[in-house]
């Protein structure tokens, strides 16, 4: 048997795509299915380079539809499997993701957002929030972790497998082209060394015995005949989602209590928000910071509590309001104004946020 890919803590200076490949190895993923698209290609490249050394496998499919469905198939055999994509690939990935929602398949997808609409840029954006949270023909029964850098990519790729298998829910690690291509320091570790046990996998198919005779038959369906039947099924899916969402929801905040303005950003943009809030605090401005880590489920109660009585919220994102929509939905009924700082497909720096917040307060 091959040794563990990461035995002891290892500090490295690498790209985010490499981090994801290592994290999936450390999480004991057995196979990746994928189709190339920039900026996630190197996840596949590193995986294919590393996989044979640790007795893992890889299948290149003919497109993202196929990559998503083969991943679902792998998962149904009880194999910890994943895929990765971006941009137009995330659109094609919706059909397999909705099947995973319907059949409660623990599908893990890593998305490295690029510019949109259409082919747009291969560089960066935060324009795949709608797609990842609610992109299918359904109700968005998924978990979406929005990462802010390499340590997150490592931690949440591992966590995504456990969330997916524990709750039997498709789980997305939402990164972006910056995180994919940038190099920064990260500590890679064996999950066991952090007390993280990998959720056991179990096969959906291939059980012993004759169904209906030796054991209960198992039905994995994504097709229903009547409206009434579907109404019940979707109701059950919702009840299941609601049963665990409070356990899964994650966020990060600082400097909330006496703040007049709360700067809200997710993913890599939250780094600029955090840095700007730090600089503004040093200059005497009363500003707070809030970052939703799970975009689905959204930390609605936590943000509502943070926003209570504030002068304004500043929603910052590299998209035209895809995160803001989650905020407005979450804060419905509150009167706190939400200001916008939107730069679709373009990075946000702390310098410009400092100026923006000053203009709101001075």
């Amino acid at each position, binding site marked *: 048997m091959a040794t563990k890919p990461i035995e002891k803590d290892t500090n490295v*200076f690498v790209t985010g795509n490499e981090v994801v490949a290592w994290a999936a190895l450390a999480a004991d993923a057995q196979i990746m299915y994928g189709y190339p698209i920039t900026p996630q290609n190197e996840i596949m490249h590193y995986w294919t380079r590393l996989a044979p050394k640790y007795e893992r496998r890889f299948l290149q499919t003919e497109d993202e539809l196929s990559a998503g469905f083969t991943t679902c198939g792998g998962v149904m055999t009880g194999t910890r499997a994943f895929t990765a994509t971006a941009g137009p690939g995330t659109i094609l990935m919706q059909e397999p993701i909705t099947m995973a929602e319907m059949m409660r398949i623990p599908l893990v997808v890593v998305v490295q957002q690029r510019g949109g609409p259409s082919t747009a840029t291969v560089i960066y954006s935060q324009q795949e929030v709608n797609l990842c949270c609610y992109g299918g023909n359904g109700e968005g029964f998924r978990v979406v972790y929005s990462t802010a850098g390499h340590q997150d990519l490592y931690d949440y790729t591992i966590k995504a497998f456990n969330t997916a298998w524990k709750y039997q829910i498709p789980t997305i690690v939402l990164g972006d082209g910056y995180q994919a291509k*940038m190099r*920064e*320091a990260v500590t890679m570790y064996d999950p066991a060394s952090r007390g993280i046990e990998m959720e056991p996998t179990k096969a959906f198919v291939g059980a012993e015995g004759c169904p209906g005779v030796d054991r209960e038959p198992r039905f994995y369906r994504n097709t229903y005949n009547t409206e009434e039947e579907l109404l019940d099924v979707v109701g059950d899916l919702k009840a299941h989602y609601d049963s665990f969402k409070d356990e899964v929801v994650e966020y990060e905040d600082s400097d909330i209590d006496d703040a007049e303005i709360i700067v809200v950003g997710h993913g890599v943009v939250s780094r*600029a928000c955090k840095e700007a809030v730090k600089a503004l605090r040093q200059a005497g401005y009363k500003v707070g910071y809030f970052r939703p880590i799970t975009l689905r489920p959204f930390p609605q109660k936590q943000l509502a509590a943070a926003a209570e009585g504030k002068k304004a919220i500043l929603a910052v994102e590299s998209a035209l309001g895809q995160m803001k929509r989650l905020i407005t939905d979450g804060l419905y009924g509150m009167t706190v104004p939400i200001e916008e700082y939107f730069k679709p497909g373009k990075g946000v*720096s702390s310098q410009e946020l400092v100026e923006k917040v000053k203009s709101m307060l001075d």
Partner: protein
Amino acid sequence: MNDLKRIMLAGEGGQGVQSVAMILSEASYKAGKQVMYIPNFGVEQRGGVSVAFMQISSKDPIGSPKFDDADIIVALSDRAVSRVKMFVNPGTIYVYDSAISDEARKELPAKDEVAELVEISAHEIANTELHVRVFNVIIMGAVLGLTDMVPEEDIKAALEKKFAKKFEADPSLRDMNYTALRKGMELVK
């Protein structure tokens, strides 16, 4: 004190901008600094201006991967001069190679628009005194001299690692690389 340095290197594909950034950022990381490096990239496989964004600090973690204002800009070609324009600010140390055209010189910032405007003849030195292939090592020396954040020894160690086989096969290459590094540092003194 936050001594964050935001560094932008821009040149033509093949001038080695990304390898300079890669070696410098790795050496800075090994020297215990907080480091972020991201190359620009687009759909084109070649022919674009190659830009590297680097940030180095002694203490504070790095925020966003890219930035608006650069503390140090190194522009190595005509097109690079146009590409870096919007990153220039009054605090910028602006370095450009003397081989750019008169046309490009017109696009350079005025002396009083930046903290320093430095012309270096890296191209010429590489071509006449050393070897065209150490052009980027001269640039590395210049950036090293300007940032003053990474010990020269760490960069040398990084070069040793990167060119181990070549140095072993021909030790004179080591001397040439070290000379180029030193020249680069002297150019900005």
